[in-house]
């Protein structure tokens, strides 16, 4: 039987994947760049509650993960920076939203380790800070390191520019960010792409995420690709 990964849309992917209340979910993207827009909207519409979301940021008030905060579907965030979101701030201060901060390099490496079968790693990041409190530390060749454990999830939602029907993915520019590691670190990975093509139409030398990691793939619709900080210079400079 041929491998069948292609689904119609985010809703079908989420239902087939078996997302439930209380699920732990990874979500690719840096700020609003490279976020799985279609999947976030579908998760909102399907109304799952008490989600734990592992994502670098929490979106803005009215876009990205901010949409799932507005509807109070998120119980806990594991993030590195959440500065752009007043809804987040309010829910965190009134105690309804849990938060775990992880340094960004530790965050990306923990996700990588989660997908790569690594049980932990010693990193210099955070030594002597509150991040290292309660964690094992070790002096290796005269330098101090802290033990960090992998991050895994039940579901990962990633966004790529192009994908083929076997789940091979190619990201675009800085929209790659956390997507490749997250694609490897969940039991079920759902990829949404701007362009879905037949196998053979992606250069194998250029594939960023090999298809083995992707369970469901679909071509997304109506990408807004919002810009948080539109900075430009005049043409005549």
């Amino acid at each position, binding site marked *: 039987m041929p491998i069948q990964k292609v689904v119609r849309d985010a809703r079908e992917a989420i239902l087939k994947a078996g997302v439930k209340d209380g699920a732990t979910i990874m979500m690719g993207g840096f700020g609003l760049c490279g976020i799985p827009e279609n999947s976030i909207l579908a998760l909102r519409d399907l109304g799952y509650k008490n989600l734990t979301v592992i994502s670098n940021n929490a979106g803005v008030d009215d876009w990205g993960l901010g949409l799932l905060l507005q509807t109070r579907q998120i119980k806990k965030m594991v993030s590195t920076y959440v500065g752009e979101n007043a809804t987040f701030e309010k829910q965190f*201060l009134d105690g309804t939203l849990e938060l775990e*901060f992880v*340094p960004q390099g530790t965050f*990306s490496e923990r996700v990588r380790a989660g997908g790569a079968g690594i049980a932990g790693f010693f990193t210099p990041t955070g030594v*002597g800070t509150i991040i290292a409190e309660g964690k094992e530390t070790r002096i290796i060749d005269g330098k101090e390191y802290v033990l960090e454990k992998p991050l895994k999830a039940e579901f990962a939602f990633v966004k790529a520019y192009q994908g083929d029907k076997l789940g091979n993915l190619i990201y*675009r*520019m800085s929209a790659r960010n956390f997507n490749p*590691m997250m694609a490897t670190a969940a039991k079920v990975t759902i990829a949404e792409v701007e362009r879905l093509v037949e196998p053979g139409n992606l250069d194998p030398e250029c594939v960023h995420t090999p298809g083995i990691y992707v369970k469901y793939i679909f071509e997304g619709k109506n990408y807004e690709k919002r810009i948080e900080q*539109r900075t430009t210079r005049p043409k005549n400079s």
Partner: protein
Amino acid sequence: MKSVSSKELLVLRTAKELKDGFYVNLGIGMPTLVSNHIPPGMDIIFQSENGILGMGPFPYQGEEDADLINAGKQTVTILPGASYFSSADSFAMIRGGHIDLTILGAMEVDQEGNLANWMIPGKLVKGMGGAMDLVAGAKKVVVMMQHVTKDGKSKVLKKCTLPFTGKKVVHRIITELAVMDVDYNSGKLVLKEYAPGVTVEDIKKATEAEFVVAPDLKEMEI
């Protein structure tokens, strides 16, 4: 001398830290301004921790691309010879000691080289982002900041009172008043340069930390 504001002075002096061929990561906010003052004829390659090496200036109006932003979520461009990579690769680059220089802002810094710039307990914390990795991994860590707070309290302390971003990580502190290096042997700061019109006495008044005056103390060149 042409008169410059204390902020301009700080940016111009910090730009002198750039050396030909350096790979550099600039923190969000004021450190970003340093990229506008690359000394002529120098090749500097800027890294952005969200996955860019060879970052260029802001795009021309109308040429912004939502897929191409810097770590401050601003639209940017790339220069010829740039590359893109994942966040894991980016922080391998940072943690692995491949970045020559990082320049960050600070709330507090102390004479032991400790840095605090991410959290004020009891207030909402926005998160540390990549700062803890940058200070743990870059070959040289330069702090650029105002010497005192808006209330006139020194930010150059004997010991940081806020939670650390990194322990014993800072190499150089540049403010609108002075350039100071951390001496990890003596546990004191070394005053290397003073801003035009500023005396050692002025710097002493604005500094809680203990410091010694370098034998080759000189005026800041900008």
